[in-house]
């Protein structure tokens, strides 16, 4: 395919899917877009286009938060953080849709300077106008009433709360306790305080937060997945290249689909099950419309 044909098809995606998918979504059936391709940026754009394009979420003048997982001092190919090309593609889409400002941040586990740089995300976004890549500032956390089953209130990051659009961009990977960490668990990156303490009830606690704080769009990076020794890995033998990007407005459905990439069933993941029970989204993939592009 030459570039022109490529672009033409690309341009047709939003038009083709716009009415079709919106109608379907309106009918109540969650949609999960699964794009595949070796070019991560293009695959990401295809996944977004399959949902009806970023314009569905990002209106001109909007302030957008793109929240990748960049919690670890690991390189892009080690699969512990969201791939920088995926993040950049999402950010560029938002800018194209007329976003006034796109903010990219995460509460890191390792040193924030090293994580931002070595994940490749800060360098990948360097030079983009109206894009902010800042470390978290503790004064911006705000107490939010969650009234959940195990968490009554917690500090969440102000810039995430005040954004017009919040796009959740996790990487799919193994996790010692939760088995997998996907979209639902990525919310931990905007939590303040002693967030390790929710581990004792992690499935219910994450449902508590996700029930109140709802991302507008979840884009799961499965360009390569970490299959063992997560969540930070470090050994390339544990990394499997899949060249896939999953997008959905239904965070539970997105997680449920991503789970299958590891050879697991959605019901194997307690976090997914708890969120589904709470009515946050659909985990039964038979009830989900999967659009492969």
């Amino acid at each position: 395919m030459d570039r022109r044909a490529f672009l033409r098809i690309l341009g047709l995606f939003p038009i083709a899917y716009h009415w079709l998918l919106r109608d379907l979504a309106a009918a109540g059936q969650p949609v999960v877009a699964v794009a595949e391709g070796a070019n991560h940026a293009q695959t990401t754009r295809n996944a977004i286009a399959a949902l009806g394009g970023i314009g569905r979420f990002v209106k001109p003048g909007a302030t957008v938060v793109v929240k990748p997982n960049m919690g670890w001092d690991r390189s892009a190919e080690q699969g512990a953080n969201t791939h920088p090309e995926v993040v950049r593609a999402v950010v560029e889409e938002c800018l194209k849709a007329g976003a006034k400002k796109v903010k990219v941040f995460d509460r890191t586990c390792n040193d924030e300077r090293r994580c931002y740089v070595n994940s490749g995300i800060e360098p990948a976004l360097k030079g983009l106008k109206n894009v902010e890549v800042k470390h978290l500032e503790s004064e911006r956390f705000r107490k939010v009433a969650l009234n959940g089953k195990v968490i009554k209130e917690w500090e969440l990051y102000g810039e995430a709360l005040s954004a017009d659009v919040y796009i959740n961009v996790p990487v799919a990977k193994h996790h010692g306790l939760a088995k997998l960490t996907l979209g639902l668990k990525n919310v931990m990156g905007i939590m303040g305080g002693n967030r390790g303490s929710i581990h004792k009830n992690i499935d219910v606690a994450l449902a508590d937060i996700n029930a109140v704080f709802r991302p507008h769009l979840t884009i799961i990076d499965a360009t390569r997945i970490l299959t063992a020794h997560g969540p930070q890995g470090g050994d390339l033998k544990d990394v499997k290249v899949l060249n896939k990007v999953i997008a959905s407005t239904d965070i539970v459905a997105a997680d449920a689909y991503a789970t299958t990439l590891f050879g697991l069933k959605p019901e194997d993941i307690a976090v997914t099950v708890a969120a589904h029970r709470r009515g946050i989204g659909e985990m039964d993939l038979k009830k989900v419309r999967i659009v492969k592009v």
Partner: protein
Amino acid sequence: MKKITSARISQLLFLALFVVMFLQTEYRGSDRLGVAVNAFFRANPLTAASTLLAAKGWVPLLLPGVLVLVLSAFLGRFFCGWLCPLGTVLDLVTGRIRKTSPVRWLKGSVKYWLLLPLLVASLFNLNLAGLLDPIAILVRALTFFFHPLLGETVRTGWVGLYHLIGDRRDLLDPGYRVVRDYLLPFRETLYPLAFLSALVFTAIVWLERFETRNWCRNLCPLGTLLGLVSRLSTFSRVPARLCADCQECARLCPTSFDREILQQEECILCMECQLHCPNGRVSFRLAGARSAAGGPVMERRVFIGGLVGGFFLARLFRFRDPSAQARLLRPPGVRSEEEFLKKCVRCGECMKVCLRSALYPSFSQAGIEGLYTPLLIPRLGYCEYNCTLCGQVCPTGAIPSLPREEKKRQVIGKAVFDKNHCLPFAKRIDCIVCEEHCPIPQKAIRSELAMLTGFDGRQTQVKLPYVVDDLCNGCGICENVCPLEGKAGIEVFAVKDRTPLKAADERTAPLEADPYR
């Protein structure tokens, strides 16, 4: 300030260089530091001399310091008058401090009482030079007190502004970022010994009220060492005495003309006398062999006393509280405590540069002999797996500078679970935050599934963590992130055998059944 002279220009340049290098001793996005303030220590003859005496062998890193020492044998104490940043600071403030009269008892051989025991202690394997080294004193005062104070003040203002105007503060953000990125310490860290570090520095400034450069001429062990060497110098002022008809030099000279004859040992070559001599008589030149280098060196009893003092210093301050030793964690790559004490000059740079603010100056944990040496306190900060900065800035190689792959395998200690505190054992509930954070690719902390009867009577499946000793490098992140309040459920303990972990390809068989494969 007096008229601008070349000595003054050189002083200001080196002070500026010192400040820039100090601020650059910080991670700024690159794994290798281009410049760091350690250059001043490597060019420091006192740290060089004491470290070489202690190590009893050649340390290539210290070549610049040895060169300065050799050069001083020809030129005199040019280091003090042209380079030393502490000396420059004193010159800058001394004009504002009204002078009383010199303190008599400082004039004698106090400086030898300081220098000799330091050097002799080195001979007995205890490197104490950094305690009184002027550059170390300055770096420690900045690192532990003034720089954190600046950071804390600016940041408090910045946070206060947020509470005042909220997100509108973002307008000022670009400006603040420049200040934060180039002038402030990255983390707000409070250090033990901050007060003492500031006190020593302030005391040195306070001494200026008695006479100019009081510390430099009467106490500084670095200056004293250079003074001893400069007795050999052939480059000196002519005439060597005050002229009977003028005596202006006694007023001009900041250091050495408090007696009739120029004290060659104390002349810092500022050349004020040459510049301002009303009669144009003064010059500095290579005078060839000189007689009377300016009074006797030191009495024999001072010499012998100094030797004995050093011996006592090295031997009698070795007491250590054993319970503190269990948690005495040294920076990565330090294999033996004895070797470390020979080389560590207590300059504070590793603590300045540490990414996670994991290193702190020891107060009593390592005994009196270990004052100001760096300790890792995991509950406050952990050793970042991919970081090699402390080894890079260590001026003497007490912390070896290792390539990243090698540094990762260095053993700081070993983690041990405390089952009375650790949640899965003590409360029979899941946690595993330590395992999640363990940076070893094969995981030094693993867990096994167990069916337990919870305290509510119900059967529950709990992940019970354990440590694989052969993989643990003691980085301390597990203890750091343990979500328990106060005491952690896992703690890193010091070990004698700090043989580096085996590289992944050196391991023949899997260490233990890996539950993830």
